[in-house]
């Protein structure tokens, strides 16, 4: 079966960086798709399926990250994640940070 490997560049757009709640939002979103997502920051690489991994990046606000997805739903996963990043993980939304 075809396993597309796609990348997308995103920016940490919230005010506080890639902290626990943001990482949880990524984790929860990524696992809804049949795909493996990794986050690359400079020479570090973290799985979106491991909270501790993502937190270890210590990504600050404004940091550029590359999302890499492998799997049947890679395209959809990247679209959804890019939207999450662009929305600043919905932290400033009046309701809640979760979709």
């Amino acid at each position: 079966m075809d396993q597309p490997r796609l990348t997308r560049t995103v920016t940490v757009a919230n005010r506080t960086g890639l902290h626990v709640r943001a990482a949880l939002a990524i984790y929860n979103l990524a696992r809804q798709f049949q795909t493996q997502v990794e986050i690359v920051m400079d020479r570090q690489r973290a799985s979106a399926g491991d909270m501790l991994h993502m937190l270890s990046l210590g990504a600050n606000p404004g940091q550029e990250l590359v999302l890499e997805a492998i799997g049947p739903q890679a395209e959809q996963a990247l679209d959804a994640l890019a939207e999450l990043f662009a929305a600043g993980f919905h932290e400033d939304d009046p309701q809640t940070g979760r979709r």
Partner: protein
Amino acid sequence: MKKLQGIAVSAGVAIGEAMVMDTEGFRIPRRFVARDTVEYELERLGHAIEAACEEIARNRDAVSNELGEKYGAIFEAHLQILRGSQLREELEELICERHYSPEYAVSRVMRRYAEVFQKRNVADIVDIEKLLLRQLLGRRREELSRLTSPVLVLAHNLTPSETANLDRRFVRGFVTEVGGPGSHTAIVAAALEIPAVVGIGPFLTDVSGGDYVIIDGDKGLVILHPDEETIARYHHEAEEIRSMAVRLEVLRDLPAETADGVRVEMLGNIEFPYEVDHCVDRGADGVGLYRTEFLYLGTEREPGEEDHFQAYSRVVRTMAPKPVTIRTFDLGADKVPALPPAEDEHNPALGQRSIRLSLRHVPMFRRQLRAILRASALGNVRIMFPLVSTILELRQAKMILADVMEDLEEHHVAYNRNVLVGMMVEVPAAVMMIDHFVEEVDFLSIGTNDLIQYTLAVDRSNKDVVWLYNASDPAVLALIDKTIRAAQRKSLPVNLCGQMSGSPVYTMLLLGMGLRQLSVPPSAIPEIKKICRSVTLADCEAVARHVLGLESARDVFSYLKGELKKRVPEFGT
């Protein structure tokens, strides 16, 4: 290697393995496990992670139900962190490859994450660490009583009940992040005669249980991960201290007597009943200051008469026929849970504490006095009131004492009718009125710790002004001199307790000023005795005359150091 500076509160050097207790009292006991138990340890880790996950899930559900899903999200995050394969793999690798204990592995890994994480995530990681450790360790807060090998205790702070329960056989030293010279840790360490450094500031994240640590209780230094050379140097130093102690041991049964035959009474300061044994071991002439505060600390209820009596009788019986001076309650209301909380204590040093509190809570005071009087039938007891500021306070205290005596008489309870009653001289106002006080007491005891604080208006736990706090200050010496001369005119015994009396630098001066009693921590008795036996009274009097003419603490101290070096070279460091 990392050197940390704190406040030295109990002398000596200790080298050994750290036992780390965090703010919640968790302990990281063992560092390594045996090769053949690795399987078992992995299983323990697995169970701990499972149990921790269950606990987090319960918290998440409870919070989500109560406050909404949004609030439960943080627990969901913790759960996912804990379930992540990275953490599990790292922990298992440390246990398998390096034979770390699961506890040690958890604390190492979590501490490392705490360092690389952004500040805002540290609290989460610490939370998870605690949760895991609680699962691994099973029970909490009892660890100090369950030691099996020598350790140096490193903690944020130690509560009175923790120090009360610790196993004295195995604790070799204390370091705390907070605390000052009067803190509970300081008092307990001095009583146990083990080195202690307090007020280091936050450092516990830099150290794990089982790490090699050096405590230098003389300089107030703590050295983490010391290098070979430093360890060797400190081993050498510890050896020197030991051999000095052995040399001084021969003095045990010799009197504290100057070279020209003037006898000095060497008394011990104690806090806990077992310290009376330290006094006996050092050949003390009695207990000059028995602080009774420990009875009130670390318990929820006020001690009863029987609690007092048990403690006092142990000390009095052991020391008899030598004297034991028991000081009545000397704390603030904040230390006695049974008392109503103070309302206006913005400035505790000047507030309702000590004798002021006793006079305010007469039933509590009477319970203590009854116990002291009952103990007076068992040996040689003296009663001492602390922090007396005015003659009316003294009279009021004595009246209550007389009343308690009458009560005992009526009930035919044995006590010594002629028990000596004295007071601490530690408030400058009392010194100014000392000629009146000497008419109404049987003895005086100068408490230099408070006297210095009140004379120079300085809080010694405030690092910005602590430089002012100095026993060498001429104003302090003038007050001591006035007190001694007033006592001499009435031929009253006068003693000096407080840290000044245990410091070799001041021994010649104090003898020269006319003191014939010194009350010091039991561990200091051999040193001070050695100095007494090495000098003549004539020399001491010359030193005192010179010092009382000096005008600054600095001049006094450097002169005294020079004189000590000249007369007793062994102490001239």
